[in-house]
């Protein structure tokens, strides 16, 4: 018998039928024996899932005999299940239904397609009247939902399945209306959702009745919030069953009107009466019929009867559920093009958010204290829904928010100013974040002030280290007492400097907690995230007024967050329950992310807290295995580019340059001596400086490679004797001379015919030569030293220095000022040596340089070009291949073609 067959290992296909048979034998109930342990079923489920016992497929080819064996065991399994489903004992029936659902999910496609309609009939019977066990109904609904989920993968039988699904709608609706158990409703609504999702057209015929059934459930307020949300979700999906624009718009319109009506009741006396008309005016154009009420006419009658006895509680429940429904309708994808009524939606959101429980003057007497108290207690929830709806609108209309953006921003900022509850503030911050990221710079300009001022307030308690703050009480909730020590400690740390660790922080945090408002950690996290978004999007444009403060704030917060912080993370996990631990990690992460944004966001000067930031990230990276470490590694990578900015040319660009020069040679020999000799010229910043003498620019950088090249050359020069040394030096010095030349060039009309530039360039060569002695030694010194401030003695030096410095990307004002001076002076003492001499020297030097080391930088390659001048084109090729400029030959070939 097959059961006794040997199998090789866990993966052997022969094992599967064996396992399946023993499951059937031992764990799956049968008719004869009573079914005592339902928990056995979960063992069956996990065994089937883990081993793929029903999959009937194998990765490698197998003996058909084994496959046959497996197949027969599955046949036995299904036979048993069907037997169980028809069993009269409800528990066995239930077990059979559950396992059949599992089979729908797990079995092979062929088997599924062959038998799904049998299974469907079996399951359908179980949700209809004769059966009355809740368990069986719920399980059948779930199994049917799985059946349809699986069927959605087969497009070829769609028609057939749709008709099957159509048969299901009535019984499901019956379950919704007749049954009273929440569990059954839940199962039924889940099933309904799957059908609408996968086979929308099957619901088409029953559209109204489904809508009525669901709406009545939502309006009744009898089910718990979880199930209500499922109903809401289902209602939001419903228009998809028709799939056209009108049904979506109509549904949304009906819901909005319904919300509006309920709001009238809820906000009686709390707002001006005109408000409600405003929404209606936008929703229903004057002169048009309002749509039928939500859930059909019958529904309307019912609710209006109830209206009198409807409790405040119920109204608010309905409002929040319907708003959730709007939100779902907006965020769920819809297959047709629809018109989102942005204006009415915004007016509605505005209406909800503007009510803060204060009485409107004219309507004072209508409200009892009790009513008002209740409304006020429920308002935050309502506001939360309103904010969610706003998020939904923003997500849905994307770029089309533009015409309304100003309104949204005004609404939000006004609300933000008044909003004081943590959960709401978190939500507002998150909306601000979405707006900033999605709308870019323009939005950043609008929101910057608001975000910054609010974040400053919210982060004040941790950021505000010194002075008054150290004596003023810490603002932490008692519940967060455990988190306090570290924060406290950090405060003191900030004052004295980042390196300083404070002892005895534990003692201080027990100081009085009164006085300042308490800012929960979630709000602080959200504030940090909003700042991060702001810096990411709009850190450079018109940010002068807040940027400094924010940078300081963020480094302080990040330092504080880390100080007491991540060393204790492990401990925290044991000390605290899960939730605060996670928010604490979130907070640290948010602080680090915001710090990174502040370091990376464009600025004119070096980020003032760069080194502290680096230190923080380095420390954070050592927290092996944490999210913090992961992020710190990322941050260090990102900051590396800040240290060593690179303006990368298109692949092989430097050598791509050559053909041009080379070509130039062929026809216009003399000019190119100079152009190549003077090659290392005018990167962006110089041009800017030369141009309009504005403040130093840091948004551009020296080529990283030129920096390297400079360095290397200097080294090389040390090994070349005497005259070579000097002239060699001249070359490396050209880096420094750049601005000079720019300056000069400026004085000439720059669109001179090419030939006319000869003398000018000769002058320049001379300039270089004239400076070479002084430049020589300083230059090597320079290359070694990394700091600007150390080298002030000589003008030339400073220019050199600039080259060294610029790559670090933080050209500060005081570095550049002297440079300007230099530009003038060197401009005046140019043209002392003769052009001929300088060019000769130049070339010799170049030879030497090329011999000494094939320079990897583009400077190197340009050097080789000038050698060509003397040696001819052949040599160029040689040199270039030496320097492994691969693409060079290609280009030389290519050029004549294009001519």
């Amino acid at each position: 018998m097959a059961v006794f067959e040997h199998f090789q290992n866990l993966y052997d296909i022969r094992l599967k039928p064996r396992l399946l048979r023993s499951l059937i034998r031992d764990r799956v109930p049968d008719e004869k024996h009573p079914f005592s342990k339902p928990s056995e079923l979960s063992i069956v489920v996990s065994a089937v899932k883990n081993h793929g016992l029903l999959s009937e497929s194998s990765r490698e080819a197998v003996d058909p005999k084994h496959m046959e064996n497996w197949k027969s065991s599955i046949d036995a399994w299904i036979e048993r299940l069907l037997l169980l489903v028809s069993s009269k004992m409800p528990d066995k029936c239930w077990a059979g239904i559950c396992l059949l659902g599992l089979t729908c999910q797990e079995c092979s496609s062929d088997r599924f397609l062959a038998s799904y309609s049998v299974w469907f009939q079996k399951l359908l019977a179980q949700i209809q009247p004769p059966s009355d066990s809740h368990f069986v109904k719920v399980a059948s609904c779930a199994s049917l939902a799985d059946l349809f989920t699986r069927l959605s993968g087969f497009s070829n039988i769609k028609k057939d399945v749709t008709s099957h699904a159509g048969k299901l709608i009535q019984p499901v609706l019956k379950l919704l209306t007749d049954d009273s158990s929440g569990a059954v409703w839940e199962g039924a609504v889940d099933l309904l959702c799957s059908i609408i999702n996968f086979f929308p057209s099957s619901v088409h015929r029953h559209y109204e009745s489904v809508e009525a059934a669901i709406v009545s459930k939502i309006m009744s307020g009898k089910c718990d919030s979880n199930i209500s949300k499922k109903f809401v979700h289902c209602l939001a999906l419903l228009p998809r069953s028709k799939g056209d624009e009108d049904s979506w718009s109509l549904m949304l319109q009906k819901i909005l009107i319904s919300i509006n009506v309920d709001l009238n009741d809820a906000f009686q006396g709390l707002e001006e009466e005109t408000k409600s008309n405003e929404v209606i005016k936008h929703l229903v154009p004057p002169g048009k019929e309002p749509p039928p009420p939500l859930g059909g006419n019958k529904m309307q009658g019912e609710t209006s009867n109830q209206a009198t006895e409807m409790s405040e509680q119920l109204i608010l429940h309905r409002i929040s559920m319907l708003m959730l429904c709007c939100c779902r309708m907006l965020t769920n994808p819809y297959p047709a093009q629809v018109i989102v009524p942005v204006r009415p939606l915004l007016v509605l959101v505005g209406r909800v958010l503007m009510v803060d429980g204060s009485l409107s003057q004219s309507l004072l007497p209508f409200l009892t204290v009790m009513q008002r108290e209740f409304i006020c207690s429920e308002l935050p929830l309502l506001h939360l829904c309103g904010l969610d709806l706003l998020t939904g609108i923003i997500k849905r209309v994307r770029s089309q928010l533009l015409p309304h953006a100003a309104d949204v921003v005004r609404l939000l900022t006004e609300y933000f100013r008044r909003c004081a509850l943590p959960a709401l503030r978190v939500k507002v911050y998150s909306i601000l974040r979405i707006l900033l990221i999605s709308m870019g710079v323009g939005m950043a300009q609008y929101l910057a002030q608001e975000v910054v001022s609010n974040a400053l307030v919210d982060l004040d308690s941790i950021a505000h280290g010194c002075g008054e703050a150290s004596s003023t009480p810490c603002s932490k909730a008692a519940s967060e007492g455990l988190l306090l020590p570290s924060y406290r400690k950090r405060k003191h740390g900030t004052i004295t400097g980042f390196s300083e660790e404070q002892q005895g922080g534990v003692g201080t945090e027990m100081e009085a907690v009164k006085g300042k408002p308490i800012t929960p950690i979630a709000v602080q996290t959200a504030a940090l995230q909003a700042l991060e978004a702001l810096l990411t999007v709009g850190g450079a444009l018109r940010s002068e007024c807040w940027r400094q403060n924010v940078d300081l704030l963020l480094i302080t917060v990040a330092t504080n967050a880390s100080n007491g912080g991540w060393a204790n993370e492990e401990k925290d996990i044991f000390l605290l329950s899960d939730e605060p631990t996670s928010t604490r990690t979130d907070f640290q992460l948010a602080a680090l992310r915001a710090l990174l944004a502040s370091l990376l966001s464009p600025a004119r000067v070096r980020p003032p807290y760069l080194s502290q930031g680096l230190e923080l990230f380095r420390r954070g990276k050592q927290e092996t295995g944490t999210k913090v470490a992961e992020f710190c590694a990322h941050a260090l990578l990102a900051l590396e580019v800040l240290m060593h900015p690179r303006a990368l040319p298109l692949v092989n660009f430097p050598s791509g340059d050559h053909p041009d020069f080379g070509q130039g040679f062929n026809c216009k020999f003399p000019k190119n001596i100079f152009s190549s000799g003077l090659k290392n010229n005018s990167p962006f910043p110089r041009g800017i400086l030369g141009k309009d003498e504005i403040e130093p620019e840091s948004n551009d950088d020296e080529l990283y490679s030129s920096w390297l090249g400079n360095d290397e050359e200097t080294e090389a020069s040390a090994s070349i004797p005497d005259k070579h040394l000097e002239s060699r030096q001249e070359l490396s010095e050209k880096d420094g001379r750049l601005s000079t030349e720019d300056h000069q060039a400026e004085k000439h009309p720059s669109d001179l015919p090419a030939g006319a530039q000869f003398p000018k360039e000769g002058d320049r060569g001379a300039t270089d030569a004239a400076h070479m002695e002084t430049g020589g030694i300083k230059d090597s010194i320079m290359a070694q030293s990394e700091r600007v401030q150390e080298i002030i003695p000589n003008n030339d030096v400073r220019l050199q220095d600039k080259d060294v410095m610029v790559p670090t990307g933080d050209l500060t004002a005081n570095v550049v000022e002297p440079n300007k001076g230099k530009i003038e002076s060197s401009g005046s003492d140019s043209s002392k040596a003769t052009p001929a001499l300088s060019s000769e020297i130049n070339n010799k030097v170049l030879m030497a340089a090329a011999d000494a080391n094939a320079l990897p930088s583009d400077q190197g390659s340009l050097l080789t070009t000038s050698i060509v001048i003397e040696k001819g084109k052949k040599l160029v090729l040689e040199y270039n291949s030496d320097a492994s400029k691969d693409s060079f030959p290609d280009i030389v070939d290519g050029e004549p073609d294009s001519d």
Partner: protein
Amino acid sequence: MEVVIASSPVDAGIGCWDLHSGAEQLRYRSCTSTPHGLACVGQRFLVSSQLRDSSSSSGTILYWSWNKPQVEVKSFPAEPIHPLISNSDGTYIIGGGSSGAIYFWEVASGRLLKRWHAHYRAATCLFLSDDESLLVSGAEDGCIRVWSLFMVFDDIGMEMAKHPYEYSFSEHTLRVTDVVSGYGGCNAIIVSASEDRTCKVWSLSRGKLLRSIDFPSIIDAVALDPGEHVFYAGARDGKIYIAALNAESTPSNIYGKHIIGSLSDNSKGVTCLAFSMDGILLVSGSEDGTIRVWDAKTRNIVRIFRLAKGPINNVLVVRRPLYSNFQTSANSHASLSRRHVPLLPPPLSKYVNSTDEIVDSGAITVPQTPSSDIMDAPYLSSHVLTKQISELQQQSSAATGMEVDRLKLDCKRSLEMVQKWKEMFADLHKFCVDELLGNDQTQTQ
């Protein structure tokens, strides 16, 4: 499919070629485009503003869908529109009028959302910054202005602001011919070209001129290297100059300061430039009616397309969605186009319509296919099973109900069993009695 589309001021239609295979696609008919007057709206359709004889006061804007050569929609804005652009979502079309006004239309409804006076002279070019929140416009009087689109729509904010624009650059002395902006959000650079033979580089974050480059000839088109190492400037002398941004340059090479090389094919003036998605192929359109595709790396011509005898004034590289490909079978194509490609939107309206302000204001969203749902659709039954098992173990009411049912059935069956046993017992009893009695009788007999 990445395609090159090109149009001409003479009526040569809009040419369309597959960039990589070189195969010519459909040619869209009857288009005499203005410079910078060709755009692709959200990959869905082509739009172009038309040159008109000066007699007619209104302008013309035409739409073509991808798969039909005829003009499908015609709009007649209040004045001739020169430059025309669309945002990447394809929700808005922005046009610059000959009076210097800028028009802002919503594509889906055709409504003119905004019209504002941007320049004193006709607008010549428009460009959206990379986050599409800032608009850069250039005009005939050499003025370049940067607009925040939010500000434009914020009437209240507009009143409070000193001036409606963010920046106004007036360093160019003659007509601005092209404006492009680079990568980097608020820290991006803007490169502009003008008939004064200069290109100027501006900082967006600072609103200042960074660099001015003099060219030997008038530059009509500018394209930024995607790495912003250099930019390419198409000149009227037929060369495409390469000018340094971050690249090093010799101040004094043959062309002038900052210009580090050129691409040249001895053609007539270069009027328009566009980069392909990979940032390597540079497409240029020329006065002689040809379109050249250059490899920016090797500086060779890779391909040449020919549109017409007359000049070309617009070249775009766009990704064309595959569903409009004709290879797809007629059937599936029909169903696709019915479901996913809505018919072209209505024509653009002439005036800002203030009367239906209250009713309108809907955002029209493009259809989304809920395709992902199927992939991540969860299977329910095992969840339900575990939930129910735990309920069973906790003896909840529903579980007890089922238990009761079971017990009832058990009880019933047991009763039946009892009945059976009873009957059997009775039978047996009777049998035994009969047997015994019978024996007795026989014995007694």
